[in-house]
């Protein structure tokens, strides 16, 4: 179990800058995020889209903003727990006992939820029966491609994941690639490759189709797909892969005893504390009168929540406000050599 001053849930811009603020005032912290990379929505949803409303940064992309924020906390060597989701937050005397789905546990007086709109989960097929085959014959990501060797795999989707796997698996499997329209949004080179393989008979390309049903008792036997013109086809298949991107789900946060309204957590505007002492919510996930879902608001909320953390992490010390321009202590923490 790790004893830390504060745990941040969410490695998006708000979580990253809050780590900076905590370390600046001498508190240690670690960050947990369900995604496999740092950056939150900025990286997952709009890495290439320009942002124009970061103060003093006229224009930058989601990826550039993330890289700059990572750079700003580089000297702090903050520990990230990626690919981990916080499942449990329980009161233990004056601390919170936090557990992730990978079994990591933290004991901390301060939990800062900077979770955006929740954790990213794969979007799934709509027919309800698909659930029963999930992680057996239906997958939303590939862990071990060898299981598909010599089998028939039906891949759904029109982005890079779907196209890349169609190309890759066509080497050793029979591949059906099914997409709801003729256009693909993946990289042009991969789209060309897919069309080439389709022409050569290596990929069975079916466009303007979507899944309408699935058959099989213990084992998946076939799927039904429906064309835009209502014509239906049945395809024998051993495996199905779905690549429809990610969706944000509030997930386990809903079970921590917090006041939640419309997927957001109610906080005060002094400490950004929730109805539970020592649990804060900042960034897109928090709600208060006048809340704006802007990155800059998340920065402000994180700065104030960090100061509130100080009181609980160092109950016998008095917090003293200092500027980065003049404080020797802060410069030492930042590793500024001058």
């Amino acid at each position, binding site marked *: 179990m790790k004893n830390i001053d504060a745990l941040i849930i969410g490695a998006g811009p708000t979580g990253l800058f809050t780590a900076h603020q905590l370390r600046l005032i001498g508190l240690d912290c670690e960050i947990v995020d369900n995604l496999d990379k740092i950056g939150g929505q900025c990286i997952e949803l709009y890495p290439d889209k320009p942002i124009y409303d970061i103060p003093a940064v006229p224009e930058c992309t989601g990826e550039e903003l993330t890289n700059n924020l990572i750079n700003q906390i580089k000297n702090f060597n903050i520990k990230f727990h990626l690919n981990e989701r916080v499942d449990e937050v329980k009161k233990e005397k004056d601390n919170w006992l936090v557990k992730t789905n990978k079994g990591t546990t933290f004991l901390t007086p301060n939990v800062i939820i900077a979770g955006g*709109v929740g954790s990213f989960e794969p*979007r799934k097929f709509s027919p309800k029966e698909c659930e029963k085959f999930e992680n057996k014959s239906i997958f939303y990501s590939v862990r071990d491609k060898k299981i598909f060797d010599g089998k028939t795999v039906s891949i759904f989707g029109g982005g890079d994941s779907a196209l890349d796997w169609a190309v890759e698996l066509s080497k050793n499997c029979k591949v059906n690639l099914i997409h709801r329209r003729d256009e693909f949004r993946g990289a042009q080179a991969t789209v060309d490759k897919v069309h080439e393989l389709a022409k050569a008979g290596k990929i069975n390309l079916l466009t303007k189709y979507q899944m309408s049903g699935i058959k099989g008792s213990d084992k998946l036997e076939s799927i039904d797909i429906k064309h835009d013109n209502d014509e239906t086809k049945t395809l024998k298949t051993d495996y199905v892969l779905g690549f429809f991107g990610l*969706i944000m789900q509030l997930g386990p946060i809903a079970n921590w005893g917090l006041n939640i309204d419309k997927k957001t957590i109610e906080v005060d505007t002094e400490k950004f504390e929730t109805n539970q002492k020592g649990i804060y919510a900042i960034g897109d996930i928090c709600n208060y009168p006048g809340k704006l879902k802007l990155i800059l608001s998340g920065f402000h909320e994180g700065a104030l929540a960090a100061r509130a953390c100080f009181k609980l992490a160092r109950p016998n010390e008095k917090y003293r406000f200092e500027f980065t321009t003049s404080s020797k202590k802060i410069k030492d923490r930042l590793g500024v050599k001058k």
Partner: protein
Amino acid sequence: MAKITYITNDNKNHTIDVDNGLTVMEGAVQNDIPGIDADCGGGMACATCHVYVKEEWLDKLPKKEDGEEDMLDMAFEPKQNSRLSCQLTVSDDLDGLVVNIPSKQA
């Protein structure tokens, strides 16, 4: 201003006066019409404000940008008449628009 009718999945009609300049998504969210999540807040980045537009309106709406069609790939049960309601800006021309809200957004 335009009267917009949102038909929720339980077949209830909600007809709302929406000010010009707002989006069809904002009209729903501000009036607590259930079924439009709009997780990303109108950034064309999440496909959770997906609606089905009544056929006769399809040609009268502004054309889809590429980004919208790409996001619709991710939507729950997209159809020919699918749109992202955050990309439909309300004007007098949209008076009488009818949209159906899907059974779920993801």
